[in-house]
């Protein structure tokens, strides 16, 4: 007895696909379980949506978890106003296509005080336009749970984080005193003002993400695929040169070449890699022989060992 579409309120019903391999299936099951548990236990969950590949997988899993119902919480995008143009276009398309409640927040201090990644340096800029902005948005929404797409294999302090990561009322993480987390029995009890960050993709690796995107045919921002693009070389990074706010420094020139991105963030802080991988198969093939990690292209993660932990303690995702 097939499920008829009229019976549900879901837009864009799913199509039939070959079954996932047991490895991806186990990861998917775990993520769906976490989504449902948080949605049932917390009063006001929200999902952080950063438009990148991990967020795209996260969103896909959320849609699966609640099918045939709608995703029962809003998506929050913290917009620094320095994202790649294609990211914003993609975000709006997806929200429309899947009938999602999208909340966009920008820290007003950015415009008021003229805070940009160029004028204030990556550390201060990130602190204000990402971390502080996130805290503002979470407080404003009164959310008691926030889903994030962080994976433990990304970075050494993330490897330590629980699936339900407890936060104090001022969004602080205390890595030395995390709640025990046994089996898949999650403790979702918090007092007013306290919250958890929930990470359904905790146990996924970068390769898992890409293989899942392939298996489930998940749409991505095209910047993940190689194309002929304009760029500028600065501080050992290739920065995309399409936004008029990027001012050339003396000696810099706009070059053209086949490049793509392994992670997406704010364009002035995200380095491209040289690549000819213009489709999913080629990206995966390239990844499987990659000798550097994905975060290498991110200026904000490179400062020093322990910088991620510091940011996380302050409330960064």
């Amino acid at each position, binding site marked *: 007895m097939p*499920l008829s579409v009229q019976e549900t309120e879901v837009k864009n019903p799913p199509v039939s696909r070959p079954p996932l*391999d047991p490895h991806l299936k186990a990861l998917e099951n775990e993520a769906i379980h976490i989504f449902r*548990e948080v949605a*049932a236990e917390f009063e006001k969950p929200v999902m952080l949506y950063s438009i990148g590949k991990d967020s795209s997988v996260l969103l896909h899993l959320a849609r699966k978890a609640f*099918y045939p119902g709608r995703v029962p919480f809003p998506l929050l995008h913290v917009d620094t106003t320095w994202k790649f143009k294609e990211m914003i276009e993609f975000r709006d398309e997806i929200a429309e296509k899947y009938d999602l409640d999208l909340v966009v927040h920008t820290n007003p201090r950015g415009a008021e005080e003229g805070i940009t990644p160029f004028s204030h340096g990556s550390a201060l800029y990130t602190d204000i336009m990402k971390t502080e902005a996130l805290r503002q948005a979470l407080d404003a929404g009164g959310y008691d749970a926030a889903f994030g797409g962080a994976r433990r294999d990304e970075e050494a302090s993330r490897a330590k984080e629980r699936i339900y990561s407890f936060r104090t009322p001022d969004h602080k993480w205390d890595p030395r005193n995390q709640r025990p987390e046994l089996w898949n029995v999650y403790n979702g009890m918090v007092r007013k003002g306290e919250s958890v960050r929930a990470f359904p993709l905790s*146990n996924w*690796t970068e390769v898992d993400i890409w293989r899942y995107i392939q298996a489930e045919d998940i749409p991505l921002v095209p910047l993940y695929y190689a194309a002929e693009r304009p760029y500028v070389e600065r501080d050992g990074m290739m920065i995309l040169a399409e936004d008029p706010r990027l001012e050339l420094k003396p000696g810099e020139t706009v070059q053209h070449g086949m490049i793509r991105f392994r992670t997406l963030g704010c364009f002035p802080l995200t380095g491209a890699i040289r690549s000819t991988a213009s489709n999913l198969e080629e990206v995966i093939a390239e990844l499987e022989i990659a000798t550097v990690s994905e975060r290498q292209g991110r200026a904000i993660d490179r400062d020093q060992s322990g910088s991620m932990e510091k940011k996380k303690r302050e409330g960064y995702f």
Partner: protein
Amino acid sequence: MTATATSPSATILPFAEPLKAVRDTRPLRLITCGSVDDGKSTLIGRLLWDTKAVKEDQAATLARDSGSQNDLGLPDFALLLDGLQAEREQGITIDVAYRYFSTDRRSFIVADTPGHEQYTRNMATGASTADLAILLADARAGLLEQTRRHATIAALMGIRQFVLAVNKIDLVHYDKAVFDRISHDFREFALSLGVRQITAIPMSALKGENVVYPADASMPWYDGPTLVEALELATVRSTQAGGFRLPVQRVVRPGESFRGYQGTVAGGSVKPGDSVVILPSGTIANVSRIVTFDLVRNAAVAGDAITLVLDRQVDVARGDVIVSLDGQPMTGHHFDAQLVSLQPGGIEPGRRYWLKSGSRRQRVAVEPISQLELATGKWQPHASTLAMNAIGKVRLSFEELAVFDAYDQNRSTGAFILIDPDTLNTVAGGMIIAKRAEVGGIHREDQRVVLSLPADLAEQLMASELFANRRDETEIKRMTAKQAAELFSNAGGDI
């Protein structure tokens, strides 16, 4: 951090190799455990290194951060795991680090746990989901109390496969006698835990001997597997035995005509047409459909996250368990359980906690019965507070009907956590032993009861600590079934 002695990072870079893990099973989940400083983090760091799971930029960071902590000119592999500032400063592990790697045979999720007694709760966190434990012992020190505590917790939590890594063998001149003695000690101890599957391996985590590469030159006397070979042969915990179990996480009602129950199958399997019971209410219904995003399925098995649709309007809420008609779990108000106390306040007798199991949260009163003495492996009567890190047997009493399987039957529906109602922190992890039968009405002043039982059942009763404690008050005789029947025909009234 000072610059490393092995400065040119190029000389310590592992070369990259394509990842080609076979994915015909889910990843094997394992933990490292054992006493503080036995080399757990170093071992996993070495394993990641030798399986080429460390990328160039990470290797460069490692080279930069490694002090001259060993005189072999090797990087401090533990830094690949000990990612918190406090851990690096103190040179110890505080919380579990989860890492992922694969060989061309299979993929692994490893949880590197802290050895320090203060952080036992974090070790328990790692152990609860593991299929296998690598227990480390420092070759110079052998088995310590903390080694036994970790082995015991791992066994209680259902881990049946152990690798005993006799580590730092390089510091005892690769002495076979040391290895033999420690492995013998452990095998003996493990037997008392009911663990029989043990692979003992002499190892130098730091030098990478018998981790991924064999060490024929330094240990020609050892012809067993390397650690990676042992891990490749291990089995993932098999699907839960017994009947179908679906703890209901949420009810989904997108429209008037659709009502589905969402949850993860925690045991057995289900297909359309099956008769099921909703517990604790006891209502019976039939499964009409199994809905997933990937359209309607004709069956679901343990581990699957599904939406179940029943053939009739019944009252089902979050926290209920939908189970097969045959092979139902236990329901009752009193259960016996084992637990590990995880927080400084301990577990106090008579105090009411929140208990969470599956998707159900309910009030429970906890009465300690006994406590495991690690030095002797014996359970001692203990009715007062179970202090932090204690392993105890307790009686759970519920106001509302509770639903469980025994943990050794089902690692999901037999597991629970206790939550402190004041701090809201998780204070214990527990495993159900059995429902406590409420016989009632037998006890009368001064009277004695004569039981006639099969010998095997008598043996089990007599093995219980309750019985053992009052053994001198009992009389026991052995006889044939016929003799017993005769004796009973002349005995007092039936109960």
